[in-house]
């Protein structure tokens, strides 16, 4: 079918060969315009990030001077961010909290998503929707009690406290995303496993996990991204000990802290890994972010 169409198209295209292909010229000029337009738009959107990365390689004086692309790049700001402000302390907090909460969320969510996908009951749909609805509770609505609870049990400004919050915050999305990935696995394969004598654990270990690993990985990456970038709880529940990068960067907002080059260097380091994660998982992420409503 397709070949037939291509053939007939090329046959039609070969007819006006005498007049040297105005069709071809029109097509390529359309393509050219699209290329220019597409790259311009993408460039404008990306510009602030580009500028920030650039500023990170400038000196403080250059950073506040008139915008210029010409300067001699230096790594001074990067060095200073670490030596003066102990960047790695906050980076470590971010890593521990976001990866810790993601692992925890996956551990709790996998059995749940497995049950929902493969052992559904009448209540499964309701449970899924209820999980979704817990995301509707705006964090600001429960800030006060969480703050007071954390204060009373000594979880304020601890990594543990923030990890717990992020785990619970991401749990619904993680369950949903895993659920949609698990559902895509043909039921037959697990049944074949059962016929071959696999118990539940073996079924999960030998079949489910290896087969849905890409899905689990992108679910995990999304959870890491969301925790890494979370800036409501981190600003309100941590101060110095457990502050992750979001809170650390916020400290640059004070009026006296006009260290743009250092801010840029710190920010670049803070967002670089997450940008890469995001680029890697953009497709699968859509599913998680929209609870499977858009695939």
């Amino acid at each position, binding site marked *: 079918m397709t070949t037939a169409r291509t053939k007939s198209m090329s046959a039609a295209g070969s007819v006006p060969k005498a007049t040297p292909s105005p069709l071809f010229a029109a097509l390529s000029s359309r393509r050219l315009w699209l290329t220019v337009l*597409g*790259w311009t*738009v993408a*460039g404008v*959107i990306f510009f*602030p*990030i580009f*500028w920030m990365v650039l500023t990170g390689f400038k000196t403080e004086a250059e950073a506040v*001077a*008139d915008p210029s692309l010409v300067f001699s790049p230096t790594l001074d700001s990067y060095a200073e961010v670490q030596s003066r402000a102990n960047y790695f302390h906050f980076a470590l907090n971010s890593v521990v909290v976001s990866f810790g909460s993601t692992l925890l969320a996956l551990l*709790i969510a996998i059995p*749940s998503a*497995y049950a*929902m996908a493969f*052992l*559904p*009951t009448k209540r*499964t*749909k309701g*449970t899924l*929707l209820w999980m*979704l*609805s*817990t995301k*509707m*509770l*705006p964090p*600001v*609505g*429960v*800030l*006060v*009690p*969480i*703050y007071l*609870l954390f204060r009373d049990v000594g979880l304020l400004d601890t990594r543990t406290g923030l990890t717990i919050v992020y785990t*619970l915050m991401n*749990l619904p999305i993680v369950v949903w995303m895993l659920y949609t990935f698990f559902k895509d696995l043909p039921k037959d394969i697990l049944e074949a496993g059962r016929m071959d004598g696999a118990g539940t654990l073996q079924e999960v270990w030998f079949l489910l996990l290896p087969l849905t690993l890409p899905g689990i990985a992108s679910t995990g990456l999304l959870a890491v*991204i969301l925790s890494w970038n979370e*800036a409501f709880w981190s*600003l*309100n529940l941590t101060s110095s000990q457990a502050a992750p990068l*979001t809170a650390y*960067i*916020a400290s640059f*907002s004070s009026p006296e802290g006009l260290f743009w080059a250092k801010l840029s260097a710190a*920010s670049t380091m803070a*967002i670089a890994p*997450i*940008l890469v994660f*995001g*680029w890697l998982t*953009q497709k699968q992420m*859509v599913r998680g*972010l*929209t*609870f*499977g409503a*858009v*695939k």
Partner: protein
Amino acid sequence: MNKTRSSGRTVGGLRTLSLQAPAVSLLFLWMIVPLAMTVWFSLQRYNLLMPGMTGFAGLENYEYLFTDPALWSAIGTTLLLVGWVLAITVVGGTLLAVLFQQEFLGRGIARVLAISPFFVMPTVSALIWKNMMMHPANGVLAWLAESLGLPALDWFSSLPLTSIIIIVAWQWLPFALLILLTAMQSLDDDQVEAARMDGAGPIAIFFFITLPHLKRAISVVIMIEMIFLLTIFAEIFVTTSGGPGLATTNLAYLIYIRALLDFDVGMASAGGVVAIVLANIVAVFLVRMVARNLES
């Protein structure tokens, strides 16, 4: 072990239940405990600075809250912020999705660049805009204006809410683009070709084929953005701190001020209840929509 598996439904149900128990019970606690506490506190006279003055307040907090002009201003700010960002991101996202759906050189990389802002943490994006883009003396926008012979604008003092809207829209436009682009890829090529055979031009195809196909994805984008935008916090926190005056204080920021700056737990909780109610008005529609999707 094997026996449990092969026998009746109730046992299967029990297994399902036990596998789901951790996730469900944790989420239940996470939701119900703070929610109950918020409601409870909102009915209490409870200020951390005045330890002696506690007790049941009835609807007093709500009375104060609703007669406080700050609340109405905050709700107004919240709605303006949400409305404008939604308008910009949905319209812009749709157009961008159409653009990035076309074939052109290096499309893949251009796409990646365009969706990048979504992965930038809110405090970083707010500070980039505040310091490097919108700064009245050294920002790129000021420099641009000057090179065009225009007066430089002090964005955050003359157009505070607009500035916040620009920053937030910059973060969320890529989200809309990402979702709508994905939705667009599921549009059947045959449908477009059939329309072309029927004599539809690009504009007709956009309005009669593409847009209807995107309807569902657009509503999902609107609802999800709404949930997040209703409680925008970090961007305000690091740029304007709600000011000047109350110009950029939205509901989330107001509650933060009442709770962690004024230490008025009762009032803050009452504000929290209002925020929850607002969010759930939106939520009902989203949940319904996702539920319909689950059926099919």
